[in-house]
């Protein structure tokens, strides 16, 4: 092991060590402060006699003369074992609860390796979340990565918890293990999650990694990778179905920007580094199902869009990597509708592989498309009727208006503990569609209309 006392420069989270030799790229270092405190870091750039180290934690107290840097000769690894279930760790993987250290079965590099696209299995098992707007219109399947795009002050935490509580694959008794990564969220939010996990007994099957708002921001780069390394272990080695919740990815990106600017890199859009897309992909792409393994990793990352702007680099780049998004709308929230999922800009790209006969129900796609088209039309007509008045609209248009209103009130709206089966959701969809004249129902199969439209909607 090599030790150096040759720090020549300290800037933000970065430390430059000179006169080093044999240091590997991405190697982990330990920094010993004069007062005996130890911090960890990682090599970001190395040349023949100089290494740039990114410190996980504050750089306060580090000095150029009395601080020792020790290069550990390996990249960042995490010790893994099924004993981790039910435990709470810090953002760097140290126990945070009062339990003992975990004795690892194996130690794995946390950056992970890319999954061979040829070795992937197509995700096609329907996960029922019990939430109508998700199940019917933006279906989640095992092995998918489906982020929640939220905004400050919207109830994304309640929704995430509700999904974690209710998610199940029907007809199997298999349970999800939950891996939860908190990135830069407040103590209050973290304890909300903890309380709910404890209350519902989910904690037993959960592994929690918490990096809170007052923890060092550089740690945030590590936290999601620890969580995903754990998730991959549980899924591919232990054959479990793992639901990974990561909140809040916006804080992760802020940390990425902070380090990038400390390294004086050429900034891309809004100061975020040019490699942010690639960096995010190494997180999000660690979801999926693979050949030869029973388990799967499903990811639900949460991010808050700065200024509710979907084109901001964080949601934008995320949307280009993930398989869709669940978008929370401030308008619906203001109308007191929970969960305020706006189905129109929401999307699940893997939906079609997870629905239909034998998976959900044969009419699923038709109902979903018809509701989409109907609600979109109704919403457009709202702005028109605001100008010309409802009376000026045709009878059919008035029905669309009604559909949009009732859709929000009955279909989108549900209780935080209301768990709707997919059949209930689809029947409700048909009931709403009965508001429209039959010739408008072009997206559903004709033979499905008498078969499934059992109940006429009553206002």
């Amino acid at each position, binding site marked *: 092991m090599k030790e150096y006392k040759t720090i020549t420069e300290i800037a933000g989270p970065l430390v430059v060590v000179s006169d080093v030799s044999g240091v590997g790229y991405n190697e982990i270092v330990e920094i010993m402060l004069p007062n005996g405190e130890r911090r960890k870091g990682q090599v970001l750039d190395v040349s023949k006699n100089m290494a740039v180290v990114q410190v996980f934690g504050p750089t306060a107290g580090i000095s150029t003369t009395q601080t020792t840097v020790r290069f550990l000769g390996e990249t960042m690894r995490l010790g893994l074992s099924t004993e981790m279930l039910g435990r709470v760790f810090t953002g760097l993987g140290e126990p945070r609860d009062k339990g003992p250290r975990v004795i690892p079965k194996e130690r794995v590099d946390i950056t992970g390796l890319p999954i061979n696209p040829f070795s992937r299995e197509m995700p096609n098992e329907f996960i029922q979340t019990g939430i109508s707007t998700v199940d019917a219109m933006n279906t989640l399947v095992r092995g998918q990565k489906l982020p929640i795009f939220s905004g400050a002050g919207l109830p994304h935490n309640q929704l995430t918890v509700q999904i974690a509580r209710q998610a199940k694959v029907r007809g199997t008794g298999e349970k999800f293990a939950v891996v939860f990564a908190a990135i830069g969220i407040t103590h209050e939010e973290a304890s909300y999650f903890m309380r709910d996990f404890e209350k519902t007994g989910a904690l037993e099957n959960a592994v929690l990694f918490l990096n809170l708002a007052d923890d060092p921001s550089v740690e945030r780069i590590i936290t999601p990778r620890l969580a995903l390394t754990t998730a991959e272990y549980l899924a591919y080695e232990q054959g479990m179905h793992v639901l990974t919740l990561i909140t809040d990815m916006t804080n992760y990106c802020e940390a990425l920007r902070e380090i990038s600017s400390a390294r004086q890199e050429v900034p891309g859009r809004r100061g975020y580094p040019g490699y942010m897309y*690639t960096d995010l992909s190494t997180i999000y792409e660690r979801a999926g199902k693979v050949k030869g393994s029973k388990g799967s990793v499903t990811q639900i990352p949460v991010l808050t869009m700065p200024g509710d702007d979907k084109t901001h680099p964080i949601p934008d780049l995320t949307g280009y990597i993930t398989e869709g998004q669940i978008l929370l709308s401030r308008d619906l929230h203001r109308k007191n509708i929970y969960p305020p999922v706006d189905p129109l800009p929401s999307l699940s790209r893997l939906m079609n592989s997870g629905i239909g006969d034998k998976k959900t129900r044969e009419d699923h796609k038709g109902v979903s498309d018809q509701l989409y088209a109907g609600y979109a039309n109704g919403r457009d007509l709202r702005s028109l009727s605001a100008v010309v008045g409802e009376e000026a609209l045709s009878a059919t248009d008035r029905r669309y208006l009604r559909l949009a209103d009732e859709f929000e009130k009955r279909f989108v709206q549900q209780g935080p503990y209301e768990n709707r089966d997919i059949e209930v959701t689809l029947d409700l969809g048909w009931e709403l569609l009965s508001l429209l004249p039959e010739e408008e129902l072009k997206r559903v199969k004709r033979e499905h209309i008498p078969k499934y439209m059992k109940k006429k909607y009553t206002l």
Partner: protein
Amino acid sequence: MAAKDEGHIERISGPVVNAYLPGARLYDVVRVGEAKLLGEIIKIVGNTSVIQVYEDTSGLRPNEPVESTNQPLSVELGPGILTSIYDGIQRPLAVIEEMAGGVFITRGINAPPLDRKKIWEFKATVKKGAKVKVGDVLGTVQETDLIEHRIMSPHEGKIDDISSGSFTIQDVIGTLSHEGKKYPLTMVQRWFVRKSRPVIEKFPPTIPLITGQRIIDTFFPIAKGGTACIPGPFGSGKTVTQQSLAKYSDTQIVVYIGCGERGNEMTDVLKEFPHLIDPKSGKPLMMRTVLIANTSNMPVAAREASIYTGVTIAEYFRDMGYDVALMADSTSRWAEAMREIGGRLEEMPGEEGYPAYLARRLAEFYERAGRVRCLAGEERYGSVSIIGAVSPPGGDISEPVSQNTLRVTKVFLALDASLAYRRHFPAINWLKSYTLYADGLEEYYSEKVSTDFTKMIKNAMALLQKEAELQEVVQLVGPDALPEKEQAVLMVTKMLREDYLQQNAYSDVDARCELKKQYNMLKTITRFGERTNASLDLGVQLKRISELKVKATIGRMKEIKEEKEFEKLAKDIDASFDDLLKR
């Protein structure tokens, strides 16, 4: 190996490694470190070579050895390419899976792109003593049930001997002599990916690439050998559109590059293509397909190379005389890879941090498309059509990648998120899209389809434009305030939008629509529109027309399989209107 070919690492920063490597040549491939990671020299300063490494560089240390292969980055071309799935630097992913013994791509793995052991039946088509030019076909191999692989001569000269029989790609199938030198002939050759394969002549685009997609074939046709770009925000259906084109376009060969895209989406392609049946031959589509999958989390430098690897393979099949469609999804990820590497090289950035050579690289890439007379003594024609997806940040196409792409591509298919929201697919906006091939293709359309097709298309487009104007008025005063004639326009354009432009990629009947059927469908709507107009002139109320039962039949004409039914539908329309007039 000479001493000058070896050196050592000096510095590592992400995927960029600086190495002391005197005498190295630009763009040569090198092996980096003890793990022998694959890399390419992209810059030379004095004795230092700057190398972009195609694999994760974690754990590399200064002073580890670097070795040059003295070869530029190239692809291996020969029987066995079809049905393969490669990463960005032509490593076969199926073989890698076996070698890695797991689902992850481990580092330093290397496998030859083509199977060395597989025996192919080679049928010589030239005789001993024949004089051949570069590119002349020496013989053929039935590579898949669909495609005959033509082995082309890499040299000019006289055939000393050649024999048909069973060979592996490395076996010598004959010899050729030229100016006193003898060359052994095999079925495999290599080509430097960054250089386009030469041709004798390029031709103007006069033959359409029939895609089976109504909005494209009718309104925004692409020519064989042409270029098209599909920009759109996420979720607007770029990938679905690309995949539909790959599945249904009338080319013999499809090269599909998943460049920096989603892993699960590539899996979808990988799982679906072998099951999709080519409508003409009844064989799996995979038999004419090459897939290149470099997902977003695979090394960024290999993503940069993937586009070149794909287009070189496309050119190779073009040279055999085939029509090739190349799908690149997405070129924005490719540009971002250039940006990322440029940033690591500390290059002076251009617009939005992209390197200043972005425009040149994009233009060079699209310029490799074309319908050509292939390089050969004999007369042979082939084409490469390039369809590139662009993923502009926030869907705003004023950004550099979109703008530079628009400058070189001739067809612009504007995807529109608001159409996607209302499940109007393909979500191609008909007012913003354009094609510059329409004039060149007019002759083909009137000859092969019908003389009135072009005129009908222009009328339909005029109606759609009129609709956009009318919609503005409707937003202010409501539809009832419009005169009946204009309300009728709205009725017909609604029909055009819902019953013509929308196409269901998941329906067996509708996913691919033949040109003749497109014509019949458009004619049906045109007929309805004309009869509506005529009836209004005769004093029939629009309300009565809009209640016609035949409208619902038109709404389901996508499902029609036979031409006869269109004749019947035409009669129905006439009968309905005649009936209205009688009353």
